[in-house]
């Protein structure tokens, strides 16, 4: 699967995808028009941002979260909905280089932002080093929390590299090290009920050590 096939959301598809909620014009499908008419009764807002290197423009019900925008409008279902309340971390994506729980963020707040999802990190035929390390160390089982774990893991190593302290950082003035405890502490917002934590720790350590 090439990168393009993997994420080939064209402007036309984005518009069609957005039609379920949006007052989009000239959608030549009766049900979509009916949907748009119905949806017209609720406030919508245009928003444009970049997802995995591609610009998207949407007209959205203002209540739509970034998570549901990705999953339902852009069909990027790699980002998971585990709780919809910011409790589990399955929906973790990176916005302007910083990880966020996309379920706690409304899409219309992201005008001009740059969003990276699991699909933007790698593909089955071209895995990101963290994805490859998760496969090697079996850092997952059911796979549902996995995209969020991987997005967090990549972000955590970057946070440590930037010297951003955590609750367990012993020395706030020295060079921060990607110790197991640092990583575990920072990953604790990503629940894995299959309990792959020990393997995820191995995968992250391997990537951290290069």
């Amino acid at each position, binding site marked *: *699967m090439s990168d393009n096939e*993997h994420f080939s959301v064209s402007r036309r598809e984005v518009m069609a995808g957005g039609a379920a*909620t949006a007052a989009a014009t000239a959608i030549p499908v009766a*049900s979509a028009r009916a*949907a748009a008419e*119905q*949806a017209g*009764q*609720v406030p919508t807002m245009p928003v444009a941002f970049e997802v995995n290197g591609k610009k998207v423009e949407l007209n959205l019900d203002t*209540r739509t979260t970034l998570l*549901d925008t990705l*999953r*339902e409008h852009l*069909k*990027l*279902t*790699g*980002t*998971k*909905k*585990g*709780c*919809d*309340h910011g*409790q*589990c971390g399955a929906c973790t994506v990176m916005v302007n280089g910083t990880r966020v729980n996309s379920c706690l963020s409304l899409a219309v707040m992201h005008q001009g932002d740059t969003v990276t999802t*699991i*699909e933007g990190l*790698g*593909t*089955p035929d071209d*895995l990101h080093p963290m*994805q490859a390390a998760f*496969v*090697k160390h*079996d850092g*997952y*089982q*059911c*796979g*549902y929390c*996995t*995209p969020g774990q*991987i997005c967090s893991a990549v972000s955590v190593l970057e946070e440590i590299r930037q010297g951003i302290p955590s609750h367990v950082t012993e020395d706030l003035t020295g060079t921060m090290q990607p110790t*197991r405890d640092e990583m*575990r*502490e920072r*990953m*604790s*917002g990503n*629940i894995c*009920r*299959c*309990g*792959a*934590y*020990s*393997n*995820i*720790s191995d995968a992250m350590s391997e990537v951290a050590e290069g």
Partner: protein
Amino acid sequence: MEFNAPAGENLFDKARIVGKSTPRIDGPLKTTGTAPYAYERHDVAPDAAYGWIVGSAIAKGRITSMDVEDARNAPGVIAVIAAPETKPVGTSPYNHAPLFGGREVAHYHQAIACVVAETFEQARAAAHLIRTRYDREAAEYDLAELAPQAPLADGGKALHKRGDFDAAFDAAPVKIDATYHTPDESHAMMEPHATIASWKGEELTLWTSNQMINWGKEALGQILGIAPEKIRLDSPYIGGGFGGKLFIRADAVLAALASKAAQRPVKIALQRPLIFNNTTHRPATIQRVRLGATRDGRITAVGHENWSGNITGTDGEDGTAQTPKLYAGANRMTANYTATLPLPEGNAMRAPGEAAGHLAFEVAMDELAEALAMCPVELRIKNDPGAEVPGDPSKRFSERHLTRCLKEGAERFGWSKRKAKPGQVREGRWLIGMGVAGGYRGAPIQKSAAGVRLSGDGMLIVETDMTDIGTGSYTIIAQTAAETMGLPLDRVRVELGDSRYPVSSGSGGQWGAASSTAGVYAACLVLRRAIGEKLGFDGDSADFTDGAIRANGKSFALNDAGEMSADGEMTYGDFQSDYDLGTYAGHFCEVAVDAYTGETHIRRMLSVCDAGRILNPLSARSQVIGAMVMSAGAALTEELAVDRRFGYFVNHDLAGYEVPVHADIPHQDVVFLDTLDSVISPLKAKGVGELGICGPGSAVANAVYNATGVRVREYPITLDKYLDRLPAIG
């Protein structure tokens, strides 16, 4: 084919692929977010409308009125399904609580309405416009109050005696008598129960998240009153289940009803705050364990009584399940009582019975060891029962290596450094302790079928309705087929979870790995014979290796067979009923308890497992460490808090129901003993996924005691229960 005698030597004893650590073949899809889960099937239902389920605000009583007009008139709403307007759906043998329809409410967050709209946001907003009034009935929700009157389970049959327990316990020079409490627990799998339903005329397709495809198909037929043949279930990827997705739940029922009403596909995921009360849970238990022994540590009396409750008064949590199997003792008594308790439905959660049972029984063993002034590892080894099942002498163990698990574990863990007297080891602010537990989980095996197909271009396709709930089924099935057909792993494609495929064992009770691979093996043997008939050799005796076949001095390429397919099923003969098929483990744990705050950290965990041939050590290890994590949660953090006034679980989300997170779990070690069990199947393999939750929590509890000298018998062991009893800070 029927497996009707213990397996002799076969191709798995010279395996090249089975038994080798193999990264999951579905790994690249799962790690890139491209494995499609139930709610994500835009490919099959691009025009699906969105459903939102409303749960009952009372636990028991009746809906007196439900006003849905505002919801029906809300923007984007397509349909509203209201329970008072809907005849109650049918039941199936797999469900205890009613799923939908009518005015009666049997438990909190029972589904009472479903709003279908063009968008998720519209469905959610409209659902909040429904106004429901109830006539609430009072009820008793406290297990401790109900337990004394609870009847024996299994229609009064759940009392098992051998010898004279009362006399032996009275006469024992050393004894313990302790009562333990385990709380209600939730599966809390990461993927919510989710379904997309679509009707074509009378035919219904559900893209859903279900562990047991054929059970689900049959049950849904009964629930909806349609022929199961008209129903298709498809669950290729399942975001965790742990028993919570063994059964059809409200998402599937309401997606089906709503799709009919809306006349288009409807998708529903149970909202996370509904899951804890709407679906099933592991029931709480009260367990009294009495053990008597001679002064030199021979157990003479074993008594274990268990009380739990459930909505129908049946199928509670039987904490005595492991007790007849683990240790010797001539005089025995186990009893299991189930109260009628109108909380949400209790049902199977990972190692039902044993998981809770070990938390009591394996701590009681620790208490007995202390009373005897004996090493708890030694006590367990001394009471190894030999060949016969101590609680049921009509059966003998097929394979049992618990003593080896304990000895190897003690050696590897550095058990000899443990101080028998608790509260003696201090490292700075930390009190350090070690704990051990034995572990037993039955190894049931089920008939299982599969279809195998040679594509003609070098690929072998395996099709079975088996599920992969994170257990690694895709990979072990591919390994089994590759081994049997003599193909490299990458020439095998595995298709799972579709009810159009042959009926498998499904995933539950840690039977999935052993059962489904045996079924695939059976199908491959049928295919080998068919190829042999086509090309002129004996498929059973031929050698299939690396895509080539050698038979009677002749050589063929597997591709010479062209396109071919075969179905096969493995069934099991009566000879297995002479045996107890089980899995065993020795679990070890080291904890550090903050001497000032009482905060507990797990520092090390080790499980040594005896579970037959390990088909894929990489994923089997993950099964065990994952179960150790869940067991650590049961010991230290997990509890569904019961509101005893209003009858519901208060902490019904992932913020309030505390499962272990990264910071709670250290590096974990797992050792698999190289044991084979020829009684279970031709692969000589048993499951491990539930063995790992039978005992590690007890080792944690015993380690906390060893660290602090405070014994907490009410799980979870949270610091509020022992902070005032910690040793004085010296």
